C-alpha cells in the first residue's frame, strides 16, 4: 500500500516535470526573441545571424528541436548553452553550489533562530514575550525578502562595510569569506522562513505540552530546559521538519530573487539572464533542474511524513 502510494506519487511527479518542461519549451519559442540576435547584438548582419542560427540549431522545426532535446535530456545531456557555448550541465554545475549553499545557510539560520524563538513563545504562551514574538513573526511574514535584502545591504554593506556585497567566494576557496559573502542574503532569505517556523513550532510545541510524556519528564525532576529542548522539541520538530522540507522549494525560489539583490552568481541570475538571452537549452535545463529538486524534496518529505508518523507517534 505504501509502496503503491509512493509509486503513484512518483509517476505523477514525473508527469509534472514533463509537463512543466513541455510548456517551458514551446512557450519560450513562441514568444518573441531570438537567441542569435541576443548574442550578436545590433551590429550583426543578417548573414551572421543566419549562420549563428544554423550553428545553434534554432532554425530547425520546433518538434524536431524538442525531440532532439528530450532525447538528450533522457541521457542527462541537456545540450550546450546558446549563449555560452558550454554544456548546460557544466554551467548549472558551476552555479548550483552558490544557490545551494545560500539555501542551506538560510535553512541553518532559520533553524537556529526559529527553534529557540518558537520554544520561548510556547513556554511563555500568553505572556508578553509570546505576544512580542507573534507580532514580530507576523511582520516577518509580511516583509518582502528583497526589500529586507536591500536594507541589509545599505546598513551592513554600504554604511558599516561589514559584509561583502557582491563578491561571492566559493566554499572551496575560503570558508570564512564564503560565509561572509552569503550571510546577508541568507539572513534576508530566512526572515519569512523564520516567521513560518516559529509560528508552526509554537503550535506543535503547545500541542506536545499537553501530552503525558511531558508530565512524566517533569515528574522525574528534570530541568525545564531539559524538558523543553530534549523531550518536547524532539517531538515537535518532526512536523516542523516537514514544514521546512516543504518550504525548501520556496527558499530555493526565494534565492532566485535574492541573488538578484546581492548579485550572487547562482542559478537565479543564470535563469534570469538565460531568459533575457533566450538561451533555450539553459532555460529548459534550469527549469527542469529546479522543478525536479523541488518536486523531489517535496516527494521525499511527503513520504517520510506518512512513513514516520505511525512509527514515531503513538496511538
Amino acid at each position: 500500500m505504501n509502496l503503491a502510494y509512493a509509486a503513484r506519487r512518483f509517476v505523477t511527479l514525473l508527469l509534472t516535470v514533463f509537463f512543466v518542461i513541455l510548456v517551458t519549451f514551446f512557450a519560450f519559442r513562441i514568444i518573441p526573441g531570438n537567441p542569435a540576435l541576443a548574442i550578436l547584438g545590433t551590429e550583426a548582419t543578417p548573414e551572421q545571424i543566419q549562420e549563428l542560427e544554423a550553428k545553434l540549431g534554432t532554425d530547425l522545426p520546433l518538434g524536431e528541436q524538442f525531440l532532439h532535446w528530450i532525447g538528450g535530456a533522457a541521457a542527462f545531456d541537456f545540450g550546450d548553452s546558446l549563449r555560452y557555448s558550454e554544456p548546460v550541465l557544466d554551467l548549472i554545475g558551476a552555479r548550483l553550489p552558490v544557490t545551494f549553499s545560500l539555501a542551506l545557510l538560510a535553512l541553518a539560520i532559520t533553524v537556529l533562530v526559529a527553534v529557540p524563538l518558537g520554544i520561548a513563545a510556547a513556554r511563555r504562551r500568553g505572556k508578553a514575550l509570546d505576544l512580542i514574538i507573534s507580532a514580530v513573526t507576523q511582520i516577518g511574514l509580511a516583509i518582502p525578502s528583497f526589500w529586507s535584502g536591500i536594507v541589509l545591504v545599505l546598513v551592513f554593506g554600504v554604511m558599516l562595510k561589514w559584509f561583502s556585497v557582491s563578491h561571492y567566494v566559493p566554499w572551496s576557496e575560503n570558508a570564512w569569506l564564503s560565509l561572509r559573502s552569503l550571510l546577508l542574503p541568507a539572513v534576508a532569505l530566512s526572515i519569512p522562513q523564520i516567521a513560518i517556523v516559529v509560528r508552526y513550532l509554537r503550535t506543535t510545541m503547545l500541542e506536545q505540552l499537553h501530552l503525558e510524556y511531558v508530565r512524566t519528564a517533569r515528574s522525574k525532576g528534570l530541568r525545564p530546559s531539559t524538558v523543553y529542548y530534549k523531550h518536547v522539541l524532539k517531538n515537535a520538530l518532526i512536523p516542523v521538519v516537514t514544514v521546512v522540507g516543504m518550504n525548501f522549494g520556496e527558499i530555493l525560489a526565494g534565492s532566485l530573487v535574492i541573488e538578484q539583490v546581492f548579485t550572487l552568481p547562482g542559478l537565479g541570475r543564470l535563469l534570469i539572464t538565460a531568459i533575457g538571452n533566450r538561451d533555450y537549452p539553459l532555460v529548459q535545463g534550469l527549469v527542469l533542474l529546479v522543478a525536479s529538486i523541488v518536486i523531489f524534496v517535496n516527494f521525499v518529505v511527503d513520504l517520510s511524513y506518512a512513513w514516520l508518523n505511525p512509527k514515531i507517534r503513538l496511538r
Partner: protein
Amino acid sequence: MNSGKKITLWIGLTLVALLFVLMAVSLFYVPYGANEMNIAGRLQAPGAAHWLGTDNFGRDILSRIMEGTQTAFSVGFFSVCIGLAGGFLLGAAAGYLGRWADELLMRAVDALMAFPGILLALILVTIFKPSLGQTIIAIGILFIPSFARVIRGGFLQTKEADFVKAARGMGAGHAALIFRHIVPHILSSVIVTASLCFSAAILVEAALSYLGLGVQPPDPSWGRMLNESQAYMSKAPWYALAPGLFITLTVLGFNLLGDGIRDLRDRRA
C-alpha cells in the same frame, strides 16, 4: 486569549480599511499628479510640501504610493478573482464529481502546488510579456490550486452532511445544491484563503516588478518603485523605505485579517 485573538482581526481590519480609504481617496485626490514631474525638485527629503519626499523626477512619492494602492489592490483583487474562479471550477468539479475526476484534478493541483510560486510566476509573466494585466493573470493562475484544494475539501465535507442529503432527497438540482447549500458552508474557508492570497499576490507582484518583469512604468507600483529607488539608496533612503513599508503594511493587514477570520471560524466550529 479571546480578546488576544480578536486583536489580530481588529488590527488586520483597521490596516486594510485604512489602506482601502487611501486607495479610495487616491481615485479622486492625490496631493500631486502621480506622474507629474518637477526635475528641479528631484529627490527632496520628506517635508511639508512632500510628506514622503520626491523621487528622481521630482514626482511626489506620497502621490505615487497612493496611486500604488490602486495597483496593489487591483493586482490583489483581480488575481484572487481569477484564482477563485478557476479554483472553484476545478475544486467543485473534483469535490462534487469525486472518483476519477477528483483523482485527476487533485493530482494536477498537487503538481502545480509543488512548484515554487515565484518561479512559476516568473515564467508565466515572461510568456505573457510584462504589464499590469498580464501580471494579474499570471498571479491569478498561481492561486488556482490553493482555492481548488480548499473548495474541494469543503465540498467533500458538506456533500455528505445531513442537510445536503436531505436537500437532495427533496429533489434539489445540482446547481441548487451547490449554490444554496454547499457554497454558503465553505464560504468562510474561501474568505480566509482569499485574504491570504490577496497578500501573497501583493508580495509576488512586488517581487516581479522589483525584478523588472511585472508592472511597467509609468504605472505606479510599489515593487517597481523599490526597483527604481535602489539607484538612490544612499542619497534618498526614504524613497526605498516608503514603498517597502507599504508593501509590508498591506501584506500584514491582509495576513492578520485572514488569520483573524480563521480564528473566529475555528472558535465557532
